[in-house]
């Protein structure tokens, strides 16, 4: 019987991903968890969900682990999302079941807290897998805080900035588009957030099973989004930067090569 590859992640890992910006586009190409499972000859359980944050990823993985015979698990992967997201569950009266909801930005807390909270999730995930003696890997799939900084910059430039993230147009996403003040502000914030990671008690506690730790080049790490999808050919478009078919293949190969 095949072993199980269990994956939790966000839209980059979601096998039912739909492009919000290009709803007409057929995006049914295989996603990296499916490609990786095939390479590893494992059965895939993919819990990834578009819009998911760290609480969703951690909670769904540990909930699922509590329902599977651990001897059947071949590999567990947490493909972490951006830090500010808020996940919660509510009862859907129409579907008559409990469903997960996600907000792009938590209305409580601040970036330093959201970073700390993410690091606690990494550590808790690592602890659970080691305790259960399960093979595991984790990595930062998308950047922890850069999306938030760009969103803040766009909001400053946009009159009547819409609250709905779907309606927020990415009018800025390249460093050369920033003026001097914006560039300074962004760099100062990035320094603060890097220091938050570097000075965290978890900085030294996260082990080699974290691919790309500590997730930023300035700290000698990386996120897969920046490291692997390093040119436009791997992305759907300028406005929807999710990986296209080629990008998904690149992600699967990159992860496969780092499994050891």
């Amino acid at each position, binding site marked *: 019987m095949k072993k199980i590859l269990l994956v939790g992640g966000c839209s980059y890992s979601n096998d039912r991903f739909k492009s919000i910006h290009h709803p007409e586009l057929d995006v049914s190409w295989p996603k990296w968890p499916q490609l990786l499972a095939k390479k590893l000859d494992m059965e895939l359980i993919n819990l990834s969900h578009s819009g998911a944050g760290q609480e969703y990823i951690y909670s769904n993985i540990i909930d699922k682990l509590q329902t599977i015979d651990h001897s059947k698990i071949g590999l567990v992967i947490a493909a972490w999302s951006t830090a500010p997201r808020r996940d919660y*569950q509510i009862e859907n009266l129409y579907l008559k079941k409990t469903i997960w909801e996600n907000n792009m930005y938590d209305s409580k*807390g601040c970036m330093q807290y959201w970073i*700390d909270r993410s690091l606690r999730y990494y550590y808790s995930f690592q602890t659970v897998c080691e305790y259960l003696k399960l093979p595991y890997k984790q990595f930062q799939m998308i950047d922890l805080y850069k999306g938030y900084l760009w969103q803040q910059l766009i909001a400053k430039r946009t009159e009547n900035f819409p609250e709905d993230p779907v309606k927020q147009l990415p009018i800025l996403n390249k460093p050369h588009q920033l003026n001097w003040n914006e560039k300074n502000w962004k760099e100062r914030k990035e320094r603060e957030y890097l220091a938050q990671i570097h000075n965290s008690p978890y900085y030294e506690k996260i082990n080699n099973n974290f691919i790309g730790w500590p997730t930023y080049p300035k700290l000698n790490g990386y996120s897969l989004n920046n490291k692997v999808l390093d040119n436009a050919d791997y992305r759907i478009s300028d406005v929807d930067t999710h990986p296209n078919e080629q990008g998904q293949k690149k992600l699967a190969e990159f992860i496969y090569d780092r499994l050891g």
Partner: protein
Amino acid sequence: MKKILLVSGDSFSDKNFSTMIHPELDTSWPKWPKLLADKLNMECVNIAKSGAGNDYIYESLVDTLQKIDKERIGLVIAAWSQCQRRSYQQSKGLYWRTSRVDTKGDVFYWTKRTMRYWYSFQVLCERYNLQYKQFQMISLFQGWLNGLHQNDHEVYRNKLNPDPNFIERHIYPGNKEKDEKILTNMVLNYEDHINAKNFIGWPLYFPFGGFHVEYKVLRDANHQLLDDMIISKYDVHPTAKGQKAIAEFIYDRLELI
């Protein structure tokens, strides 16, 4: 060198607890974590905070455990709070704040979230071979289902200027009996993942031999709060005597376990 007793919890365990309803009252009596540490001949590290939710209790314990040599830990205790609270850190100083009621999700999610904290805390301690205990200090979801009391500020204000129309409790918007059954089953069904020998009061409900500590220690056989155990009918936090009783109760269960 003495071993460390590390405790996190809410106002029932907060070493700096002060009552907003009776601001004139000196509440500097020793709290149960200190009393228990003395009985165990341990050094007390008490990080419990008034108003804390279970996010704070878990996250503060995990953070603090990173900063202490694990060889020095004698015992770790999580004294869990009500499920509907939500704790988070704010501003550059990363001060902890708690919303009395999480604006997102519902009581089923809040309960499940707490159950994940129980499990994550247990795994963390077992992974590092730390002696630990956990328990619900106050009820997990009954406080919410029975209608949450007004907060201490509102009770204090009403004590000074009584309003005949003052509503002591909010009204639970759902079907209390039905939802209580579902929530009880959620907890009971989680038993496979809980090390009951380290969870004092498991599985929380009297009909199944469980309890939360406040209910067991500060009340009589008819479940009525004992006057000398609580500050007043307005503020049901434990008095000096109540704190001693909690410390003794937990101490006795350490030996039994």
